[in-house]
């Protein structure tokens, strides 16, 4: 009798542990009640052994529970069995996702089709062959949409040869192309086309009595801009001055009055349109970047300690199944080997570091601080170099009012044309020369390879952004203060149309960037490839982080120049197309196969993060410009106003009173401060929830281990009991389920 009591308690514990769902629990506990009958604990055995391999791939063979999602749940009420009816399409979708061989699926499909549906009695037997075309519209959409995406075949071949990590770089470039296309579409539709095709309404004409009014300034400016011919015209194309300055490429040529469109007979408030379209472009970029980043974030999970399995990731998901060529396969083998070896190596180093003496630790800390200090000093140094170079260029721009004097740099005579390029060339040269120095610095600092790459990328991005900032700062330093009523300003030293000047500088920067990257690929790359057959050290590597920083830099230049040259996105579309093919040439012909495993998920997160950072950094100076700096009086859609945002404010003034009241309230401190407080509280709430979940997870993991040990213990006890009561035949009748 005591044996049965023990059996009861054992079975009760087993049953509570193997409860997977409410229904199962109900069935199982009822069995527990009758456990005194010896025959019943055969079934308890079944439940117990089945639970050890519950929803495995090949468990669905004989049990009814495996087919509930296809055949519907059955409920027995009294003597009648009610079966849930599932739609045919849903059934087929479920059958498709079963991990079973084709023959079995075919049988299931036939069963599903042959079952009579209640509709058939009314409508007539449903034809066995349903229509082929698009019975599932979502799949149809997806298949047809794939035809319109360009470059898929090209990207597939890159993926086959170089792996998904490098292919993701080109996918990122294609996405940037799409973004720029959308932005250029906006600008073309709402800014450029109305300006070209519309007739400016009769604004005020230059009144000779007031030579410093905006209109007269504009006339003076347009007449004084030199239009050169012949060879100089070609140079002007590259520098953005001369004839190119007076086209719709730059800000200066746009009207500042309402425009009457030819075909539609509408008045188009041009200044408002200009500023709103630019803001729209920024908003669309921001939303699209955040959307893509969130998508990637959902797929690649948070790199938290303990929740990201590094070794499992390499072993189970490391091999790229799309690799086809033997060379790439050999490379992939060595890449995975290297990755595993470096992981092991990093562990050893981490161990060593933990057991370091405190004196060594201080030495390491000092080394790192020194490294950071050096990097920051380099950033500021290059920033000031750019500032000085830009000031030089500004002085040159001012002097070009008819006297083609030759400028002097450090006593050497330099032609005017070269002077135009001093700021852009300085920036680009610094961007090329300094990052390798950062690389050497990070090795000296003694970080792990992963951290090295991160620091390298951060510092390179910092360099690029710093160069842009210092350039903008040099422009800002020569702006006229608000309230000056002169055209060109002999008092303040700005060029007559400073927005166009800024646009030109950025235009030249884009050109120099393109020329430099072409030169690096074709000239330097070919030289190094020829030499590397003799000296392997000089091999060219496709350094993915640096290439990504280049792309992100180009895109931030595009965002900066939208306000000053509305056709900038279009230019960048062309530039990215050229760069796309050039980089492919670089990768396929010049580069040696890389020994670093670039994982697609990590790369995508990196790209989006860098892009978001640059975007936020770019909106700062632009926002400042729009809100604070007075636009020039001689040109552009905002001439005569105190600041650019005034165009929006003026049109808001014409709206009904209650909207103005709402907007007025939204900008006061009485709204902003509570809103900020609420936001901070929400953030803190989510942070606290995340911390609580984390501790819950670790507690549950410990509990799982304990449960498993309990299960083992009980299993052994069950075996012992079986043997002692002579039921060894049961063990043979219900063998442990295996695949």
């Amino acid at each position, binding site marked *: 009798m005591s044996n049965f009591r023990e059996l009861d308690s054992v079975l009760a514990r087993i049953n509570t542990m193997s409860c997977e769902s409410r229904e199962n629990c109900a069935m199982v506990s009822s069995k527990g009640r009758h456990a005194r009958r010896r025959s019943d604990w055969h079934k308890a055995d079944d439940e117990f052994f089945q639970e050890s*391999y*519950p*929803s*495995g*791939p090949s468990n669905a063979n004989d049990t009814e529970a495996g087919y509930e999602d296809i055949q519907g749940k059955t409920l027995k009420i009294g003597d009648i069995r009610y079966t849930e009816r599932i739609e045919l399409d849903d059934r*087929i979708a479920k059958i*498709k*996702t079963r*991990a079973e*061989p*084709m*023959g079995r*699926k075919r049988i299931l*499909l036939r069963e599903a089709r042959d079952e009579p549906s209640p509709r058939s009695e009314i409508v007539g037997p449903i034809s066995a*062959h*349903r229509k*082929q075309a698009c019975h599932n519209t979502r*799949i149809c959409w997806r298949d047809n949409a794939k035809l319109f995406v360009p470059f898929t075949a090209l990207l*597939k071949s890159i993926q086959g040869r170089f792996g*998904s990590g490098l292919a993701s770089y080109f996918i990122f470039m294609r996405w940037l192309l799409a973004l720029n296309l959308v932005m250029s579409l906006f600008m073309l539709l709402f800014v450029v086309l109305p300006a070209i095709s519309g007739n400016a309404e009769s604004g005020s004409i230059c009144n000779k009595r007031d030579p410093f009014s905006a209109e007269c300034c504009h006339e003076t400016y347009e007449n004084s801009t030199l239009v050169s011919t012949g060879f100089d015209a070609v140079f002007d194309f590259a520098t953005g001055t001369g004839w190119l300055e007076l086209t719709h490429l730059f800000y200066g040529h746009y009207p500042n009055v309402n425009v009457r469109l030819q075909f539609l007979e509408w008045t188009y408030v041009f200044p408002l349109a200009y500023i709103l379209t630019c803001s729209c472009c920024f908003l669309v970029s921001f939303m699209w970047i955040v959307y893509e980043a969130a998508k990637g974030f959902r*797929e690649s*999970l948070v790199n938290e300690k303990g*929740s*990201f*399995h*590094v*070794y*499992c*990731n390499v*072993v*189970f*998901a*490391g*091999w*790229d*199944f*799309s*690799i*086809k*060529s*033997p060379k*790439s396969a050999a490379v992939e*083998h*060595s890449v*995975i*080997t290297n990755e*595993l070896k470096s992981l*092991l190596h990093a562990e050893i180093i981490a161990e060593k570091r933990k057991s370091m003496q405190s004196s060594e630790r201080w030495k390491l800390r000092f080394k790192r601080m020194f490294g950071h200090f050096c990097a920051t000093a380099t950033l500021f140094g290059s920033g000031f170099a750019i500032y000085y170079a830009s000031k030089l260029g500004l002085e040159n721009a001012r002097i070009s009012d008819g006297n083609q004097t030759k400028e002097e740099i450090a006593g050497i005579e330099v032609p005017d044309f070269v002077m135009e390029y001093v700021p852009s060339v300085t920036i680009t040269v610094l961007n090329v020369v300094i990052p390798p120095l950062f690389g050497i610095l990070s090795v000296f600092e003694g970080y792990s390879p992963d951290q090295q790459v991160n620091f390298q990328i951060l510092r390179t991005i910092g360099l690029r952004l710093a160069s842009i900032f210092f350039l903008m700062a040099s422009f800002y330093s020569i702006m006229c203060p608000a309230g000056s009523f002169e055209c060109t300003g002999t008092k303040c030293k700005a060029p007559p149309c400073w927005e166009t000047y800024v646009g030109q500088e950025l235009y030249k920067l884009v050109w120099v960037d393109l020329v430099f990257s072409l030169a690096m690929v074709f000239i330097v790359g070919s030289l190094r490839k020829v030499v590397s057959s003799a000296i392997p050290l000089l091999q060219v590597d496709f350094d993915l982080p640096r290439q990504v920083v280049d792309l992100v830099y180009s895109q931030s230049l595009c965002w900066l120049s939208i306000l000053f040259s509305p056709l900038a996105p279009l230019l960048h579309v062309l530039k990215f197309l050229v760069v796309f093919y050039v980089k492919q040439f670089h990768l396929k012909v010049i580069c040696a196969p890389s020994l670093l495993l670039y*994982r*697609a*998920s*990590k790369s995508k997160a990196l790209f989006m993060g860098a892009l978001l950072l640059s975007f936020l950094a770019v909106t700062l100076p632009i926002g400042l410009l729009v809100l604070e700096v007075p636009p020039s009086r001689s040109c552009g859609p905002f001439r005569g106003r105190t600041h650019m945002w005034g165009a929006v404010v003026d049109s808001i003034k014409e709206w009904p009173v209650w909207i103005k009241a709402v907007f007025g309230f939204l900008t006061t401190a009485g709204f902003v401060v509570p809103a900020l407080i609420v936001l901070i509280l929400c953030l803190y709430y989510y942070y606290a929830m995340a911390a609580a979940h984390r501790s819950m997870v670790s507690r549950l*993991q410990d509990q*799982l*281990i304990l*449960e*498993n*040990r309990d299960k083992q213990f009980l299993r052994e006890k069950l075996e012992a009991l079986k043997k002692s009561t002579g039921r060894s035949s049961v063990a043979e009748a219900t063998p442990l389920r*295996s*695949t």
Partner: protein
Amino acid sequence: MGNRKSVFTPEQLEEYQDATFFTRKDILRAQKRFRELSPISVPSIMTGSEAQTITVPLDVMETLPELKENPFRKRLCQVFSKNNSGALTFDDFLDMMSVLSEASPRQIRVAYAFRIFDYNDDGYLGWSDLEQAANELTSGGLDKDEVHVIVGKIMEEGDIDDDGKLSFIEFQHIIERTPDFMTNFHVRI
């Protein structure tokens, strides 16, 4: 499409479309590739039961360009074939390509990946399975101690209930936290 005689009957095509993640064009392309492997034994018209009966043996199967360089090609063919022989009929081949295609969802890929890594077919990923997987991946680039440490690390990361082997649930749990699985476990035909 210009064929006087079509490769499959419409019923067969519809069944294939319902049972796999392929469209009609993909299925016909897959048949063409299957035939290229062994044009003598595989007919160009499969309106009867040829798709279930005619098999291509393992060594010929391994010459498929998409599989040729894959260290797991043998296991792939074995998992999708009957009796683990590695010889695939067209049905099995289509099944395999459908599971590895872009449209197949995570749960079916995880289920088959588990079977692929389970070299000894015991329903668990034990030490020997993982050691063999690591050796195949690095094609012998790591020595025995390193492989031992790596498998130990994997067990440390993935074996939640501490029984010395990875069950299917634990494998599922690992793959949920492996962001590269879906992009890498993918063959386009």
